[in-house]
């Protein structure tokens, strides 16, 4: 009996050792999290002084990782502003310049690749995205017989992603932008499953951005570098649009197919377009999501 107890002890000891050893990979966790970040409060509960501390922490982390001191701001929505995007499908030539301008502006991971905009090459005569080609590789665009449809976050009035998030890590702000608190997201990817526009992206591993490609003009809810394991998506370039500028994808478009502005201002471009143009489309209108992103034809 005592021999049995001894052997049981040995096996138990061996088991505990193996248990400890099985966690060996955790040595490489590195800057996965830290106390300050772990205990950080929810965005909407942060006082201005809390926010200052959080921003200092983020600036420090970015500087340590990328060797560049960024300027991080917590930009609030402007009064009397509701953003709307309008995209002219007659003009778009499918050159994908918007995709890469967005990556550059918003500090998206280059490898593995995260892109907020997906351009679909569509045959004339259909708005069915399942007929679209994501992987077209053309030396010369536009090709005859096709039109091109860039798709990104539609900033819905009834966003399914916000509804499903179990921890309120994503919400709609009063200027219509649906934002994500990257420090609150638990990475369950329910929003990614809920989005009818496939607009959300997950950081499957630590994002990789070359040091010289960092855009130092950052905002908390916008383009600050993300961590492994959280969601991100198009936020209409908060760091630009909330200080009155156009989003990066708009400025990159070589044919002026992209139009952006304040729908509450009757003199804005988007107000003009929605008033004057006859054929405009909310993608998958039947979903009841009511996008703030409109597609239109003008010829």
């Amino acid at each position, binding site marked *: 009996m005592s021999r049995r107890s001894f052997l049981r002890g040995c096996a138990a000891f061996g088991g505990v050792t193996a248990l400890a050893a099985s966690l060996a990979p955790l040595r490489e966790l590195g800057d996965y999290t830290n106390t300050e970040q772990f205990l950080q409060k929810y965005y909407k509960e942060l006082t201005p002084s809390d926010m200052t501390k959080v921003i200092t922490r983020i600036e420090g982390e970015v500087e340590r990782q990328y060797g560049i001191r960024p300027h991080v701001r917590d930009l609030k929505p402007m009064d009397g502003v509701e953003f709307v995007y309008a995209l002219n499908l007659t003009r778009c030539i499918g050159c994908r310049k918007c995709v*890469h301008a967005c990556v550059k502006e918003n500090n998206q991971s280059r490898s593995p690749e995260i892109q907020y905009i997906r351009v679909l090459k569509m045959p004339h005569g259909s708005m069915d995205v399942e007929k679209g080609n994501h*992987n077209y590789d053309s030396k010369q665009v536009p090709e005859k017989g096709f039109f091109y449809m860039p798709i990104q976050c539609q900033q819905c009035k009834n966003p399914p992603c916000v509804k499903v998030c179990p921890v309120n890590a994503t919400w709609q702000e009063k200027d219509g932008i649906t934002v994500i608190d990257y420090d609150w997201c638990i990475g369950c990817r329910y929003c990614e499953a809920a989005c009818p526009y496939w607009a959300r992206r997950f950081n499957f591993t630590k994002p990789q951005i070359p040091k010289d490609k960092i855009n130092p003009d950052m905002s908390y809810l916008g383009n600050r570098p993300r961590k492994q394991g959280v969601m991100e998506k198009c936020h209409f370039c908060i760091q630009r649009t909330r200080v009155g500028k156009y989003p990066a994808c708009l400025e990159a478009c070589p044919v002026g197919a992209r139009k952006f502005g304040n729908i509450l201002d009757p003199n804005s471009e988007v107000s003009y377009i929605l008033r*004057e143009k006859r054929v405009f489309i909310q993608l998958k209108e039947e979903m009841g999501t009511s996008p703030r992103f409109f597609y239109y034809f*003008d010829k």
Partner: protein
Amino acid sequence: MAKLDPSAQKKSDHTANYWLGGLTAVFFSLTIFFAFNSKPHVAAQPEIPLVDKKFLDTSPWRQTYADLVKAKEDLSDYDCYACHDKAKPPRIRYDTNQKIIIPKEHANIEMSHGTHERNNICYNCHNEQNLNTLQVRDGNVVKFDNIPQLCGSCHGPTLRDWEAGAHGRTSGYWDRQLGDINRLSCANCHNPHAPDIPTREAAPGPHYLHEASSHEPSKSHR
């Protein structure tokens, strides 16, 4: 499996001891295995090349006369009377198919404004009386740096869209109280002699997360 007789009981005890010993050994080998192996069992991700700089360039495709003036560049191309005679407006010649014959001095001009080659009279836009200016069909003279007025004389709705910011490229500020909107002019994108936007190379398409590990994405099914 009722009561076992004592000898079978003893044998069973021995077997249990062997199993416990064996387990101990296996646990310790696992410990060693874990300690020396921390690489995940996935194929290394291929490095995705950075996109070519040319796809990040956001400058206008063309420079207008106004841009050249602003940049203080050489404007000698716009001085028509360096070659032409002020008193003798050049005559437009056509071949037997009524196709315009472009003189070799202007060989860089491709005439394809409008369909069916009907818009083939230079003086639709250029001022016959003063080649250094342009003219609208009602006879109003327009300077080279005021192209939208000229183009808009035929393309009224487009001019209206352009003025509203709905046609053409803009940059700068959507909020005019915070900054200026920069609006490109017609000739920044359109070649007046051949205004269709030329085709160009598309930037690289998406790379999939597991491209390396036989997760081939759906290549164009069209």
